[in-house]
């Protein structure tokens, strides 16, 4: 019997129907995958379920009782818990403090710390989520933080646990661990909603799958009776090939050269003596678990972070001490990892976002003055070319789904036509259809002789696109591999810091 039901849920945003009479039901003890491309309405649906948004029509029923959530507090009171893609943790506090926060066991007016620690330890043991209650969260690896998020939900007596793209930040080993935990929780009677765009994960762990496209449910599938091709068809409405054509024949001239690059101070070197060369027509992949110096490396190349040692040569010019603008002018463009915080201005229109970087030269600017009509035409062209779903070019990009916002960023950066492209997590949180699109754009760049530095925590992406692969671990390059000699298990081993030769 369905434990949780969302019935005929409708949510409208200006110009977009985000959820169009969506029905979703989840049973106790079931792992239910919610799949769909970016902009399909998964995030909206989960936001409604978690009380972050209220539906325009439709309602939610738990245990046959209709419920209304005015805020996540109401949702939590009804036993709904959510593990967000970006964790909501106090980094300077300990594990137990994060878990009990807001519902602390008390002794008189004070928090009963000993009792809190005992409860947290008991909870972690009961559910097979090993964690040190005394550890400071800031010092924990990502996989453990995720465990902590799950513990937080369990502490609040969660009956429905929503996980939003939970594997995006994990190593393959950690993913297996997470799935084991999810199965245990389900066996204990918890209903689990897994929001994901990864076919293999949904196939591996879920019992049933609900697929959304353009705000509507397109398929309800029993996992044991379906296959990836059927899911992809339901998500995209067409048949896709995720295979990437092989590399072009010969790499061209050296475009980017790093020599013994160091970022960060004496005590903590975020990037430690990294060297490589990147040639035209080549994709160099940088693999590694997030937080091992990849972001710092890229920011140092772009000039957003100072180099403490070594040098960078871009298109034959030493740019180690140059400004960001000078580096961009010297021929590098950059798809930044964090599209919301870094690579866009949410409060500005698509026109303003797409014109940035082109706003000082013709045709968009003449003698320092903007030509608004040209600017809007430019935006419309890119929106059409990159198939961005947006009401108009004057719409604020903060209203867009992750995938469409990512397309805005990619459209703008590719439009620079720079000989070197740095693509940092270009498909993070992006659905299959958009991944195919983005990958084919990257391949096209490569085939035109441009050099691509691809930083990704997604092994499948690295293996599909990169001609050569560097693995970063704790700021160092600990392995350099050709695509032919790399596979998921070898890379996984290096990503975990393993020095031993894998065969």
């Amino acid at each position, binding site marked *: 019997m369905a434990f949780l039901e969302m019935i005929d849920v409708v949510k409208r945003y200006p110009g977009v129907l985000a959820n169009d009479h969506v029905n979703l039901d989840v049973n106790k003890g079931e792992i239910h995958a919610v799949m769909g491309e970016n902009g399909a309405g998964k995030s909206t649906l989960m936001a409604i379920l978690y009380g972050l948004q209220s539906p325009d029509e439709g309602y939610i029923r738990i245990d046959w009782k209709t419920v209304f959530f005015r805020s996540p507090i109401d949702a939590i009171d009804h036993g709904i818990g959510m593990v967000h893609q970006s964790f909501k943790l106090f980094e300077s506090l300990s594990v137990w403090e994060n878990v009990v926060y807001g519902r602390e066991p008390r002794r008189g007016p004070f928090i009963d710390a000993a009792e809190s620690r005992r409860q947290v330890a008991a909870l972690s043991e009961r559910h097979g989520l090993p964690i040190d209650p005394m550890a400071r969260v800031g010092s924990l690896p990502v996989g453990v933080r995720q465990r902590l998020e799950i513990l937080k939900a369990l502490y609040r007596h969660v009956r429905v646990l929503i996980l939003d793209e939970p594997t995006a930040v994990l190593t393959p080993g950690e993913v297996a661990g997470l799935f084991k935990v999810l199965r245990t929780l389900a066996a204990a009677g918890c209903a689990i909603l897994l929001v994901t765009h990864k076919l293999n994960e949904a196939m591996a762990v879920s019992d049933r799958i609900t697929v959304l496209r353009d705000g509507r449910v397109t398929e309800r599938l029993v996992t044991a009776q379906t296959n990836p091709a059927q899911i992809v068809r339901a998500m995209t409405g067409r048949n896709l090939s995720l295979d990437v054509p092989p590399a072009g024949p010969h790499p061209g001239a050296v475009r980017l050269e790093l020599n013994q690059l160091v970022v960060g101070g004496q005590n903590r070197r975020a990037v430690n003596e990294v060297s490589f060369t990147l040639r035209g027509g080549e994709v160099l992949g940088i693999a590694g678990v997030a937080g091992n110096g990849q972001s710092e490396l890229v920011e140092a190349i*772009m000039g957003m972070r100072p180099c403490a040692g070594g040098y960078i040569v871009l298109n034959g010019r030493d740019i180690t001490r140059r400004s*960001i603008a000078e580096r961009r002018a010297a021929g590098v463009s950059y798809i930044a990892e964090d599209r919301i915080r870094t*690579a866009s*201005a949410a409060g500005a229109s698509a026109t*303003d976002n797409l014109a940035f*970087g082109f706003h000082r030269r013709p045709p968009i600017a003449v003698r320092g*003055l*903007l030509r*608004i009509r040209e600017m809007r035409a430019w935006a419309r062209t890119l929106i059409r070319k990159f198939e961005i779903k947006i009401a108009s070019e004057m719409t604020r990009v903060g209203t867009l789904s992750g995938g469409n916002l990512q397309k805005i960023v990619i459209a703008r950066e590719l439009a620079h036509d720079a000989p070197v492209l740095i693509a940092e997590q270009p498909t993070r949180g992006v659905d299959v259809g958009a991944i195919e699109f983005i990958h084919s754009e990257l391949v096209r760049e490569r085939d035109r002789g441009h050099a691509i530095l691809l930083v990704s925590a997604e092994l499948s992406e690295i293996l599909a696109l990169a001609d050569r692969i560097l693995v970063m671990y704790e700021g160092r390059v600990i392995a350099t591999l050709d695509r032919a000699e790399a596979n998921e298990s070898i890379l996984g081993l290096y990503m975990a810091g393993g020095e031993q030769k894998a065969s």
Partner: protein
Amino acid sequence: MSLSAEVALTHITRRAISLVPLLSAVILGFGVCGLIAKAVGLSPLLMLTELIKGAVEGPQIFETIARAVPLTGMALAAAIPLRAGIVNLGADGQMVLGGCAAAIIALYLPAPDIVRMLAALLIGAGIGGAYAALAAAGEIFANVPLLLSTWLLSYPAKGLCGWLVRSPLRDPITAWPSTYRIPPGVRLAHLVPGTPINQGFLLIALAAVLIVFLDRRSSVGYELRLRGLNERFARYGGVALNRQTTWLMFVSGALAGLVGAIMILGSQFRFTDGALTAPQYTWSGVLAALLAGGEPLGTVIAAVLFAALQTGGFAMERSVEIPRVLTMVLESIIILFLSMRGAIWRRGR
């Protein structure tokens, strides 16, 4: 830029772009003030009519315009950096330095009258700008937050000018420390005879038109706006933030200095210690800029509105003895309502 106050200010900036919320805040503000007036036994209707009459009726309209000139200037001086999310709280000092420099040039530069006047305006603006740029340098090279440095640098500027007119430059026959009177040939001419409106009006109007135009149509204005929306994005796209901060502060301070020079050459005719800051144009200007979220046209509208409220308030106090402090309450309530809007709006969704 790490102080939470600055974050709060940019927060207001983001939410205060269109004119609709501005109008509703104004109406709400009038409503609350009416209630206050009623509570203490004054007639709200009388207050409103006297306020409006005092602001626009007959020759009062010229008073309003004359007050709007420096207020708009100071409001734009605050709005220019605010557009990029930067707060200049030191316009007081920049204005005083500009005014003081203008008085000195106007009195002592050995040159024909017209040259003296132009030099006084230019150098007044230049000194105000340079002083503001100093605060920018402090942030860039020594990480002193602009919010603090601009504000604190006001005091030495005011102190220096106060000392100048107390000892070396003092006109001994005045009761209050001030310079000698500026000769008539160097003063700004009146535009409408018999009113306090002078050529300063043209200068500030020109500046306002220029700023509105550049904000909407220039590459530079576009960079400012995007920085105000997301500073990290602006940096990522190649905007040299430090250089931008420096010239922004220069332009802001220069405008404040120009206002100081205009007031000296146009209405006060001598630099008197404390006379430029007494009407508190700087703070009314900061409020007007905040009210419009740094958007230049909105800032001008808000500044003119405040000028009207202030002249109306004075007149109201004179004619029907309703204390003009109520108009200051009104200004504050408008700002508070406008800042509150964000929170209400978000809950509504």
